[in-house]
């Protein structure tokens, strides 16, 4: 089933207005994806319980790489592209991208942080005597700021835009506003990920 939204009025300089936009059917939380999320959660718990370095390093590096690349790509590449798309194309893209983001981001973030903390314990980097301690604390601060932006702005906007698109008569202005909030937040997070890359490569070298 698909519903239709009235396109927002175009600005004087902008492209001509569109007619009602068809919204394809979609799941806000893709149920099949929950299986992958459960597998990732079990893998993290098993890695922590195993007290072995390799599984922790694998999950931290794999999760961290995914988190960093997605934030950078979304904020600095995909965001500006989406902003220049036509309204129907943007809505179709949103209904395909955003439900996946609902599952992917919390999963990779939890995986990276939980495995990363345990890795810090195992390698001794959390101890204040460690030469890397200052960098580890710096990474806490960067991740902390990113967490506040992601949890307070990005994640609520992600869910709200999908729920709005599920309405019988979605409000295009609400969608526009929430998508802007999502993309600006993603852009800030993308820029902050550069700091994460600097810190993590410093700790690893």
């Amino acid at each position, binding site marked *: 089933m698909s519903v239709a939204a009235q396109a927002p009025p175009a600005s004087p300089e902008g492209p001509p207005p569109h007619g009602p936009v068809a919204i394809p059917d979609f799941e806000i*939380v893709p149920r099949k994806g929950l299986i992958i999320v459960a597998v990732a*959660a079990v893998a*993290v*718990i098993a890695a*922590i*319980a195993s007290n072995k370095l390799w599984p922790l390093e694998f999950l931290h590096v794999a999760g961290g790489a995914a988190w960093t690349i997605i934030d950078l790509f979304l904020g600095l590449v995909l965001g500006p592209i989406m902003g220049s798309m036509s309204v129907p194309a943007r809505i179709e893209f949103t209904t395909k991208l955003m439900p996946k983001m609902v599952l992917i981001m*919390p999963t990779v973030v*939890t995986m990276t*942080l*939980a495995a990363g*903390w*345990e890795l810090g*314990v195992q390698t001794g980097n*959390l*101890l*204040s005597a460690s030469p890397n*301690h200052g960098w580890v*604390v710096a990474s*806490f*601060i960067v991740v*902390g*700021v990113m*967490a*506040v932006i992601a*949890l*307070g*702005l990005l*994640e*609520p*906007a992600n*869910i*709200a835009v999908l*729920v*709005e698109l599920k*309405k019988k008569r979605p*409000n295009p*202005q*609400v969608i526009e*506003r*929430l998508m802007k909030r999502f993309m600006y937040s993603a852009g800030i997070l993308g820029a902050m990920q550069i700091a994460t890359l600097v810190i993590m490569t410093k700790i690893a070298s």
Partner: protein
Amino acid sequence: MEERKLPPVTQVGMTSLALIVAGGIYLSAHLPEHVPLGPAVALLAASALLMAGNLASLARVPGFAWRRFFEIGRWALLAYVVTAGMIEYVFLHNHLSGGPLIVLTLSLVVFAVHVPMLIAFTVARYYEPAEGAAAAE
């Protein structure tokens, strides 16, 4: 778009989260060595107060789409309880105990309640009460 007058739930929520995160960073930066709990307790108390204030101010909004709020909120709560549970597991696995464990656990409780509240608020604010009730049916 006509905007309803609503309390600054998102701004207060983000401040509350920032305080919790600051407390968590403070404790994490000192663990596993002895850490004075005063600053972390103060940050936690301030964060919890902001959360309570946020809930109270939202409760006074006339005609808020509460059904929609709770419908979204309960699923978000489930997701964030799982996340908080995994973080708590890491603390317990590393034999964290005493005051730091209590402060960090309570911080996780604030986190696991406040984030779903922000998600549910962001969704419900764009619903008329009647619309929210119909959507929940």
